């Protein structure tokens, strides 16, 4: 069964153009100039119920605009979409009962009240039966480990604690499809991992379809089975995440800071090259297809006096560039998906 079906979805905005300077401001006041900006340029996409789909792209690619059209927030300029069989912008309220949405930058928790109060409000909003609500709330509190935070005003929670509450709240009414727009933005590695585990668990146990946008390749690797990459408002890649990992996400960056006077290995292990080298700080590129990250770290930790070390995924821009350069062979939008 299809969870969503999108055909030729387009969204354009009129943007006021104003050159810099006071004179230009006055001119703009009298004779404003508008240009049409295309945020989404004919997206075509299908997703099966129960899928975990990563919707990727650089800033300004049209990810959030697409999600906003699929949740009924924005009306499209043209095109068609059906989410759970409904047209989002025409059947917004009915659809809202069956979907959930988490925006990393927009909270649905009440800032001055504890999450328990927002959960109460959401139970009324989604018209949950009392017994069902209490059972569901307790289940989510246990699985998301929210017990210590449920009675604390949201303003006093850390970002990680708040996001866990936020995502648990989005699952309260058992949405069939959950839209997550950068849910891990600004979170530390441990919290990110826990949030991914919890979302994956809901997908496994309740069959919730997950539609995720993120700039963090780890979100995609660990949570999603399919990746759709968009750029300039159109789909440029659509394939299983395994292929994206195999063909694009093959490189990790290791930053090393050595103690004073310490020296790096005489010879770098196979699959490792120095991208930047300084007297005590190094940026190394590790090709994970030829060297395991564990072996590389073991080699450095065993032989160098390390003061600090970080491991990073390639930035999304590099992923997009690799897709453009044809390193990954996903299907283009015109051929359809699934």
């Amino acid at each position, binding site marked *: 069964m299809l969870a969503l079906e999108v055909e030729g979805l387009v969204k354009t905005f009129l943007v006021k153009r104003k050159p810099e300077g006071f004179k230009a401001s006055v001119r703009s006041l009298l004779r404003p100039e508008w240009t049409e900006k295309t945020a989404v340029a004919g997206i075509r996409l299908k997703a099966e119920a129960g899928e975990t789909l990563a919707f990727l792209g650089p800033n300004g690619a049209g990810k959030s605009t697409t999600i906003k059209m699929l*949740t009924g927030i924005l009306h499209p300029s043209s095109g068609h979409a059906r989410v759970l069989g409904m047209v989002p912008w025409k059947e917004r309220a*009915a659809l809202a*009962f069956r979907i959930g949405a988490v925006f990393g930058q927009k909270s*649905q928790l*009440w800032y001055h009240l504890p999450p328990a109060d927002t959960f109460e409000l959401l139970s*009324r909003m989604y*018209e949950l039966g009392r017994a069902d609500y209490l059972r569901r709330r307790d289940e989510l509190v246990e699985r998301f480990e929210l017990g210590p935070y449920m009675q604390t005003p949201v303003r006093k929670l850390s970002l990680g604690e708040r996001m866990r509450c936020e995502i648990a709240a989005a699952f309260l009414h*058992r949405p069939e499809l959950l839209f997550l727009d950068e849910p891990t933005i600004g979170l530390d590695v441990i919290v990110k991992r826990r949030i991914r585990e919890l979302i994956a668990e809901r997908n496994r146990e309740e069959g919730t379809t997950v539609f995720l946008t993120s700039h963090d390749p780890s979100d995609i690797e660990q949570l999603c089975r399919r990746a759709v990459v968009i750029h300039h408002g159109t789909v440029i890649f659509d394939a299983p995440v395994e292929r994206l990992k195999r063909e694009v996400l093959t490189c990790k960056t290791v930053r090393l800071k050595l103690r004073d006077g310490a020296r790096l290995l005489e010879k770098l292990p196979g699959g490792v090259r120095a991208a930047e080298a300084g007297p005590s700080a190094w940026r190394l590129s590790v090709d994970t297809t030829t060297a395991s990250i564990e072996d590389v770290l073991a080699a450095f930790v065993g032989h160098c006096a390390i003061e600090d070390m970080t491991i990073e995924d390639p930035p999304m821009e590099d992923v997009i560039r690799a897709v453009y350069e044809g390193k990954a062979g996903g299907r283009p939008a015109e051929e359809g998906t699934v």
Partner: protein
Amino acid sequence: MSTAVSLTGGRGSRIRRAAGIARYVLTCWKLNLAAAMEYRASFFMLAVMMFVNNCIWLVFWAIFFNRFPAVNGWELRDVMLLWGISAGGFGWSSVLFGNYPRIAPIVANGELDVFLTQPKPLLLNVLVSRMSLTAMGDFLFGVAIYALAGEHTLIGAAKYALGLLISGLLFLFVTLAAGSLAFFFGHAEGMAFQLFNGLVALSTYPTDIFKGTARIVLFTVLPAGFISYAPIGLLRRFDGTFVWLAAAAVAAFGLLAVSLFAVGVRRYTSGNRMAMRG
């Protein structure tokens, strides 16, 4: 899988839906009050300060009427009841539907997103999601004025309640209509704010001091006259024509406001500003 009620078909379904909305609105008001009381000192200070602020204006009018006992037939008691209706009406509407003066910034800053992903009627959901603390003082002031200068009979109380209803709804609908222009013009905050302030200010002066064009304006585009004439046309003597015209004005501005909002939402462009519910 979802436990949500069906939104289509059948009278029973519509009744269930209405009951669901009513329960949601009541919970919203309860939580708004709880959120306000998170800062008890600020809550009481703001409410008391607004009460005192209104009292100062009445002292000014008392001094005025001490020198000139009647102005175009208006006496101190009429002006007191005028303030009772104006402040009381503004008070209840801002306590229960506290987001109506903020519609323009909410639209311009893209803060409708979260509301649009929720399954409740959008406009109602936005309006009830905030409660004005200072307005509590206004409402209590209005009730205190009625207790002090109003007609203490069942009919007197009913007429005062009708005055509060007309006044509150006019504040709500006129400001909502002005704020909804933000869907069409972008930054309409300034204009909506000025219109709102104009309505509040003009609704606290006796209608009969305005003549000619100003009076026409007061009963058309900026309908403060339907609030400020209530002490005479509704409380002192029940003028059926005035009351029906006031009801028609409420209906007309209500229709205008709801239509502008409904048409405007189709043009909503969202935004990327960080937002959190207060």
